[in-house]
């Protein structure tokens, strides 16, 4: 078996996986807590529209995608904050509108090619040094943003009105969060692909929410789950020649399954102990045994 560390492209891919694993759940935590998970998938398809336009017009696709996703994020956030977004319907319109437009542009431009597939499914080979630098840049930005505004963002996610009455500048922060989400999705797309980038914002976060009691621990757990999925997923993809995005998201889902199993076993064992204690205390001295177990 060849060592993955012998290949430069593989080192780049692993670095990309680690960065996406850190970046996506850091923002994803606030997206999920605000019950706005569908925005990730919507912005990914807006970014795909940008990629299609970029490939068709021979301009740098990542740049067009970045612009499209940022603009899309601002529009969606404006609609949301004005209460003009009746549930998920408006998001569905934006998602399918972008996808349909992308498909039409791709058809006119001569159909699907390797470049497009690398955007759709993510590709280890396609991660260039430039992609990596951009990804590192947005990761540093997001970590600083979330670090400085952690309590503000937590309050907004908890209750927007309460945050405002506490003096939090909700409008500006929501807009910043939306634009950073757009940028995160566009730049993570190179590694995990358009179709699965939303999963990296949501699934590691669910692992954190399942296991942690407080917000900070949930965040650390989610990032750990994301980084682990990135490394393990890309390694699997390398050895069995599978899709990078698919392997990464499946790894994250595996962790989520383990998290559910772990909490279920913990609950079952606690209940089992309770049941064992009941007959023991009924047979033995009244209440004596029972107290030891509590």
């Amino acid at each position: 078996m060849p060592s993955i560390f012998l290949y430069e492209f593989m080192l780049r891919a692993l670095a990309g996986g680690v960065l996406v694993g850190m970046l996506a759940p850091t923002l994803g935590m606030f997206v999920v807590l605000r019950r706005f998970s569908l925005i990730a998938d919507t912005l990914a398809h807006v970014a795909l529209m940008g990629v299609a336009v970029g490939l068709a017009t021979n301009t740098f696709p990542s740049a067009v995608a970045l612009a499209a996703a940022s603009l899309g994020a601002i529009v969606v956030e404006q609609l949301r904050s004005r209460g003009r977004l009746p549930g998920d319907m408006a998001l569905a319109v934006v998602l399918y509108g972008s996808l349909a437009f992308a498909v039409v542009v791709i058809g006119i431009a001569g159909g699907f090619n390797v470049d497009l597939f690398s955007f759709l499914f993510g590709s280890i080979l396609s991660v260039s040094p430039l992609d990596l630098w951009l990804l590192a840049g947005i990761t540093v930005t997001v970590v600083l943003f979330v670090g400085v505004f952690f309590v503000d963002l937590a309050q907004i996610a908890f209750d927007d009105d309460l945050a405002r009455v506490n003096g939090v500048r909700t409008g500006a922060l929501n807009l910043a969060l939306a634009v950073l989400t757009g940028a995160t999705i566009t730049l993570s797309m190179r590694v995990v692909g358009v179709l699965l980038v939303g999963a990296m914002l949501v699934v590691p976060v669910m692992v954190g929410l399942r296991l942690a009691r407080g917000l900070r621990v949930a965040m650390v757990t989610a990032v750990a789950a994301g980084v682990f999925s990135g490394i393990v997923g890309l390694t699997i993809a390398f050895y069995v020649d599978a899709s990078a995005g698919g392997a990464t998201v499946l790894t994250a889902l595996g962790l989520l399954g383990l998290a559910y199993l772990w909490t279920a076993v913990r609950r079952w064992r606690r209940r089992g102990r309770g049941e064992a204690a009941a007959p023991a205390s009924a047979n033995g001295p009244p209440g004596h045994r029972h107290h030891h177990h509590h």
Partner: protein
Amino acid sequence: MTCSKLPSRPVIEWDRVTFAYGEAVAVEDVSLTIHAGELAAILGPNGSGKSTLIRLALGLLRPLSGDVRLFGRDAVDFADWDRVGYMPQVIAGTWRDFPITVAETVAHGAYRGISPLALFHRSERPEVMEALEAVGMASYKGRRLSQLSVGQHQRVLLARALVRRPELIVLDEPAAGIDVSGEEQLYAVLRNLNRERNITVVIVSHDIGAMLREASTLACLNRTLVRHGPPHELTSTEIAMLYGAPVDVLVHDALHEHR
């Protein structure tokens, strides 16, 4: 020494205020003043504009016409949030998946402005514990919020509203979804805050019985202000006027749901 009571100043003033959500008028031409030291209740059936009225007072909504002043300042421009505590309506299950402990929830209320190190602050600080003790929830500090009963949940949010030692607290349906003993505990805490610490308390409620018992002034709202004054002056005819027949209340609810 005799207690020389200062002439109480207005805390919240609504002056000929109208507000509508799109076509639906929620509050029409309401003029009402709440003074310092009052335990004021805003009473009315569901959909009567009670929550809208206090969201206007907190600057969360901008009136269509008329003026809203909070501590003498235009509510929309108000920024001195140390003076105000707010407890929103708790809808059961809203924070079921939110990973937050009791102490963290209250600590968020104590948070003032951006601080790069806020992420590393301890949640169980003296002011947080003091607020939790005031509502009898100190022993629950490390629990996850979602594990509490609705009544305990409400008291934690009350502690969050109290942690900055405000002069005014505004509560939207604080007793919704809690049992009789939980309700009694909550009102006891509010009475105590009003009398001992001289905090102005504004309660929005649809519970006539509790408000007749607890409030020092009563404002009855049904889109327009029906009456305003001490509770003992409220007549049964006025109650009937406010709520109408039970059928009317149901119709009103249905309209509200569809809006």
